[in-house]
């Protein structure tokens, strides 16, 4: 603080010092400061009278943005030239808290009044953060203020919040501990500017202080050394002689003019800052045509990162190095030691395999031993299949995918993708309403299926449900699909992509046919394009991985046990026989691929993992990979999704949807196989 030369410490005007740094909430009356204070602090609130007054001050310790702070709620005030005891206390706390983090809370619908106070805080040289509260009301009244633009104009953090609806409170906490000096100077009439210069001569003094003296703020008297008072009075009278209006009025007028100018700038700022690269990028990624190459690029990066790096290097490391050479070998040896019966495991490249021979004519105890042996390390063993798939094959893939997806989320691309797809759909005369559930489906298809409730007609809801189940893999599944795409040629990937995109457009087209009329727009607030933060992404990757392990691994184990039982009861080979006309003749795949489709009912990523394992073992060529991958991508996402479809759409409709999806996905696969065969396409 700089008014030390003039300022004599107000003897009673100190809040208790020591302890954590202060965080002051200051603002006009009735803007929601107390409500915000409650959310920021939650507990241990102290109410005390401000020294020498009856004004109550609420304060509480809290952790804000990772920092310890003493949060102080000041009385509402309309300006820093106090008109009442309350206002005086607010001003005094502000001036007597050097180094405090100051948060000005304002009513967004009342932006002029808010900025009038902002200008005065700025004039006192106090760094602060501006919180535009009650943004919910502003939104309802259509008087929303662009916080980003205002922040650029003022040069301080500006956060739009709603204490009532709890919007953006986390962001407020982050910005509250990063106040900045505002970059705005109010221009006053020349005589007043001269007066400011005159008062400040030889003194290190803020404009705010000088202006308060000119405006005749008597509450400042205790701050001013007695011997200086006559000189300051003389300057004020001198300036007043040159200005027609009372100085306080002239000063207030200049501030109002400055606010109007500011608001004008903030609204043009939006247009002007388009030249900025990030805004440009944000803009084109929403464009109905230019957004498509952006999306293609994003998918390309995903393919390269997840398919090549994750599915290549990482899986090689975990599967070939760790699981095949160590984990599986050790468990097989351990079980062979614990559960004894005569058999020899197949050995390839000096590695023990789960498959074995020579277990004929076993006694009862040997049968029991074989049972336990097989459940753990048999061809459908929990370790040799479920865990190998889940941890060695799928986990590295989903971790790399989650990393990539975290970058997408953190960069602000997802809402732009939704807007872009919506515009694209509508340009093509399709129903844009389906887009939001589809983007939501990237998070979880099951949930997105539930959101189809908001769609107006049954038909719409049905179509979106089909669209979700057919075309939109949830994030984990998208990862495994990317992995299978990794080793394929660009043409092969392009074919897969066109079939999926074609399907989405086909369903979208049907949607437009069946559901005529203007599609309602959805409103998304578009956050600025951000540079993703590694710490955020790491947290997300960890959280998602944990979720994935908890949610998917049990299903992998159940699926494996199912296969084990089917195999032990000879049902599996029967099923393979039954499915063979479809799988072998129709799709041109090896008979074992039917196992993958079978477990794909539980989760399509598990099915995809099975196909991926076959692909890695060299059992699928490029054509077979593309065909099987297309089928599994179009397949029902997971059993949870199926259950929700049945529940939401009713059993009959649900079964019809499921039937359609199965027929459609296999049908497309057969068509692809036939076409590839007819044109002797090898894709290699």
């Amino acid at each position, binding site marked *: 603080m700089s008014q030390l030369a003039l300022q004599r410490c107000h003897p009673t005007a100190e809040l208790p010092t020591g302890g954590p740094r202060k965080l002051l909430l200051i603002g006009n009356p009735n803007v929601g400061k107390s409500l915000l204070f409650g*959310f920021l602090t939650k507990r241990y609130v102290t109410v005390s009278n401000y020294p020498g007054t009856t004004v109550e001050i609420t304060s509480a310790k809290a952790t804000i*943005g*990772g*920092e310890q702070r003493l949060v102080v709620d000041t009385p509402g005030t309309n300006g820093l030239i106090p008109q009442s005891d309350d206002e005086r206390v607010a001003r005094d706390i502000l001036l007597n808290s050097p180094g405090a983090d100051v948060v000005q809370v304002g009513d967004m619908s009342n932006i002029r009044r808010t900025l009038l106070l902002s200008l005065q805080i700025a004039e006192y040289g106090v760094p602060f953060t501006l919180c535009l509260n009650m943004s919910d009301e502003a939104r309802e009244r259509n008087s929303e203020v662009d916080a980003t633009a205002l922040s650029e104009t003022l040069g301080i*953090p500006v956060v739009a919040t709603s204490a009532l609806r*709890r*919007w*953006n*409170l*986390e*962001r*407020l906490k982050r*910005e509250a*501990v*990063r106040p*900045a000096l505002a970059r705005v100077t109010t221009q006053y009439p020349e005589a007043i500017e001269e007066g400011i210069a005159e008062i400040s001569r030889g003194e290190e003094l803020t404009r705010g202080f000088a202006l308060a003296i000119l405006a005749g703020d008597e509450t400042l008297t205790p701050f001013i050394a007695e011997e200086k008072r006559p000189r300051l009075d003389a300057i004020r009278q001198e300036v007043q002689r040159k200005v027609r209006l009372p100085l306080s009025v002239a000063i207030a007028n200049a501030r109002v003019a400055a606010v109007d100018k500011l608001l004008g700038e903030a609204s043009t700022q939006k247009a002007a800052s388009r030249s900025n690269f990030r805004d440009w990028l944000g803009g084109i990624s929403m464009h109905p045509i230019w957004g498509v190459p952006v999306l293609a690029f994003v998918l390309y990066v995903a393919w390269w990162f997840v398919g090549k790096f994750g599915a290549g290097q990482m899986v090689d490391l975990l599967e070939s190095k760790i699981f095949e050479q160590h984990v599986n070998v050790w468990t097989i040896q351990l079980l062979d030691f614990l559960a004894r019966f005569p058999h020899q495991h197949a050995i390839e490249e000096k590695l023990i395999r789960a498959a074995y021979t020579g277990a004929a004519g076993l006694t009862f105890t040997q049968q029991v031993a074989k049972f336990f042996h097989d459940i753990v390390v048999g061809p459908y063993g929990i370790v040799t299949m479920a865990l190998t798939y889940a941890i060695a094959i799928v986990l590295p893939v989903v971790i790399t995918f989650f990393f990539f997806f975290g970058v997408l*989320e*953190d960069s*602000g691309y*997802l*809402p732009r993708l*939704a807007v872009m797809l919506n515009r694209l759909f509508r340009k093509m005369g399709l129903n844009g309403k389906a887009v*939001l559930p589809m*983007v*939501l489906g990237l*998070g*979880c298809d*099951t*949930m*997105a299926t*539930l*959101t189809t409730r*908001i769609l107006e007609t049954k038909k719409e809801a049905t179509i979106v449900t089909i669209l979700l189940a057919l075309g939109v893999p949830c994030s984990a599944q998208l990862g495994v699909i990317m992995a299978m795409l990794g080793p394929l040629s660009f043409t092969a990937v392009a074919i897969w992509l066109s079939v999926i995109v074609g399907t989405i457009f086909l369903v979208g087209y049907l949607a437009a046919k069946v559901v005529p009329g203007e599609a309602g727009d959805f409103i*998304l*607030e*578009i*956050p600025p394009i951000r540079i993703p933060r590694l710490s955020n992404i790491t*947290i*997300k990757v*960890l*959280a*998602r*991985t*944990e*979720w994935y392990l*908890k*949610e998917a691994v049990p*299903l992998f184990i159940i699926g494996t046990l199912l296969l084990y039982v089917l195999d032990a009861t000879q049902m599996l080979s029967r099923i393979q026989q039954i499915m063979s006309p479809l799988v072998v003749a129709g799709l041109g795949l090896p008979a074992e691929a039917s196992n993958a489709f079978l477990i794909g009912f539980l989760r399509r990523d598990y099915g995809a993992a099975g196909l991926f394992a076959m692909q890695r073992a060299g059992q699928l060529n490029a054509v077979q990979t593309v065909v099987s991958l297309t089928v599994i991508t179009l397949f029902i996402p*997971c*059993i*949870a999704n199926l*259950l*929700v479809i049945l*529940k939401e759409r009713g059993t009959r409709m649900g079964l019809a949807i499921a039937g359609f999806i199965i027929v459609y996905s296999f049908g497309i696969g057969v068509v692809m196989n036939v076409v590839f065969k007819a044109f002797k396409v090898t894709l290699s």
Partner: protein
Amino acid sequence: MIDEHQYDCPLCGLDFFGATCHSACPMSGDCAMVRCPRCGYEFVQEGSIVAMLRRFTAPWRKHDSPGHR
């Protein structure tokens, strides 16, 4: 269920307090998904791994200085 966490929706940017609605996914009673009350986007709640890491790194993160933007 009142949840003291605050979340930042990756789709619409809403910061909200508490998970108003956990997943209605029939596969698991308490799935770790959090659903944004404004746009419906569903994302993963910070699980126990992150919570554990936070506890471990808490004393160490205190020394971070508040960066100015």
